């Protein structure tokens, strides 16, 4: 990788996201769900930055906050050095074309009443109003070619397509304004096994052709290993470990990363023979005071239950880990 480390395309600083839960209007307690607590990540231009974690870890919230679908409770988000989380819609509009998103469920992410052309033309018409009708048509045709869609699909409605075809259309929609950065939120987890490889290859090819930067959100570590440059492992709204993909797989530092890796079913078999302790995610409304992973952690000490470890760079490998005992 040749990109310079000081020039992140997307950066978050101390990102916090709190949701107040609905309560009875007389109740005095105001329960607050901490979806993200203090997330600092930097995504470099041209890389595939993977965010991995189990449900409830905040990985989708992080992606949606960067895309502006959610407003952070505190913290800052930067895109190419510009702070974007405080921008109003008019200021943000020029950036919108450069940031796009691919969603998890291709059965819900396309408007069922709009044909493919309408779906693909809308971002151009809204974000690039200077384009003429002919330009819009040319751009839609080009993006259909680039994503392996047939031109005859333009006048068809989403229900006429299979899941894999729909996901191609959704990717085409994300690409139609020629963005530099794409958040892909579990783009293959709703697809059949034989289709997943098709979509992963497509994303890979598009990255090579267009120099895209991906933020790839997934729960599937085997995909990350193949696809990612760097990985952030999240647990209960915090980044537990941040490292290059190679480092994470070769030498995971955080006990949670180790647990995650051990949970991948292997084609070689044999890793499910030993009994496993039942583990549960702690309640995100009342998170434990110290390390959120401490209740499940095999090496937890008293300090882990009282003091939250911060993400720090380990001297040996350059891996960042939020663990008192990682080294």
């Amino acid at each position, binding site marked *: 990788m040749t990109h310079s480390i000081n020039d992140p395309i997307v950066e978050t600083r101390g990102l916090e996201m709190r949701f107040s839960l609905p309560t009875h209007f007389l109740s005095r307690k105001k329960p607050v769900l901490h979806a993200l607590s203090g997330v600092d990540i930097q995504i470099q231009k041209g890389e595939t930055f993977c965010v991995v974690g189990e449900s409830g870890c905040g990985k989708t919230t992080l992606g949606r906050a960067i895309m502006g679908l959610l407003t952070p409770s505190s913290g800052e988000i930067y895109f190419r050095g510009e702070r974007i989380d405080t921008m109003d819609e008019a200021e943000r509009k020029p950036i919108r074309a450069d940031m796009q998103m691919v969603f998890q469920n291709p059965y819900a992410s396309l408007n069922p009443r709009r044909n493919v052309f309408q779906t693909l033309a809308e971002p151009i018409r809204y974000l690039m109003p200077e384009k003429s009708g002919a330009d819009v048509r040319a751009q839609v045709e080009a993006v259909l070619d680039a994503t392996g869609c047939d031109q005859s699909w333009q006048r068809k409605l989403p229900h006429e397509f299979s899941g894999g*075809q729909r996901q191609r259309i959704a990717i085409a929609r994300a690409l139609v304004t020629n963005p530099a950065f794409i958040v892909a939120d579990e783009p293959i987890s709703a697809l059949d096994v*034989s289709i997943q490889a098709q979509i992963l290859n497509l994303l890979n090819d598009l990255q090579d052709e267009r120099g895209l930067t991906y933020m790839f959100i997934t729960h599937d570590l085997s995909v990350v290993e193949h696809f990612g440059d760097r990985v952030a492992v999240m647990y209960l709204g915090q980044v537990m470990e941040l490292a290059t993909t190679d480092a994470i797989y070769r030498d995971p530092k955080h006990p949670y990363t180790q647990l995650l890796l051990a949970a991948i079913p292997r*084609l070689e*078999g044999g890793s499910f023979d030993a009994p496993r302790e039942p583990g549960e995610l702690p309640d995100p409304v009342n998170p434990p005071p110290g390390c959120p992973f401490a209740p499940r952690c095999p090496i937890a000490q008293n300090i882990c239950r009282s003091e939250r470890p911060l993400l720090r760079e380990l001297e040996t490998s350059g891996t960042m880990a939020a663990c008192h005992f990682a080294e």
Partner: protein
Amino acid sequence: MALLDVTDLHVAFPRGKKGEVEALRGVDLTLEKGQRLGVVGESGAGKSMLAFAILNLIADPGRVTQGSVTFDGQNLLELSERQIRRIRGNRISMIFQDPMVTLNPVLTIGKQMIETLKAHRSISTREARRLSIEKLNLVAIPSAASRMDAYPHELSGGLRQRVVIAIALLTDPELIIADEPTTALDVTIQAEIMSLILRLCRDNDVALILITHDLGVVAEVTERLMIMYAGKCVETGRTRDIIDAPKHPYAVGLLKALPQNSAKGAKLYQIPGSMPPITNLPTGCPYHPRCERSTDKCRAAMPPLEHGVACFHPMHENGARDDAEAAQ
């Protein structure tokens, strides 16, 4: 004699005024006592249909049009509803993807377990309670005795699925059919649950039919494997053998397409196209439009399942193993 013997099973659904479409198009399967079988396929391949057909649970308007399901010498498809209830949920247990299919949301865990037991055994409530707690302990539910009074919604997804497994084990079944039991769960919870199912089956000599789309899970848990495509079994045999040396081009493609089987950064192998819907199957072998080895022969006729593979041009042709024949 085999514990379960399924021969030439066909399931069809009506379509239009007179027509029918077949969701299962002749499936054979043999399961010995204590054997663990994985059934793998994409959505629409008919793998869940197979589970329902074995239990004679195909819902109207679908029906079994042909074939037999022999469990311990009895054809389940010919039993009366009364007779089959003595087997279903007793000698054969089921675990579904959604625990709430099994759990009744308005009853406590304990009440459901005790009622299940008393429906199949003539024992006292006290004894049923003791057995239930024993099973909850077996599936490693923390503080099992107090969980007996919990309602399903008070438990997390992972714990709920453990309770469902405990219920499935209550009657000491000889066969457990698990339909995507961990698809809705997180990776670490999936590993816990699958490892639990694996050890429980192995230690108690319980046979298992595990329906899943995940080849990794199958490799970890099962001894035998059956790969389904468009309502047919395309390859069957020992799990290890198929994963190491698949013969059917579809099985080859599925395995080659897994990211862990390909070098980092390299292009993944991809099977072109997608599985045809059962309402619109191609002639001959249903896989031929996507197959790189297909010939005119494949377009003309459906290859029979021989030596564990239904293909005219299998890979590793000379490597037909003894046990592949035994599977027939």
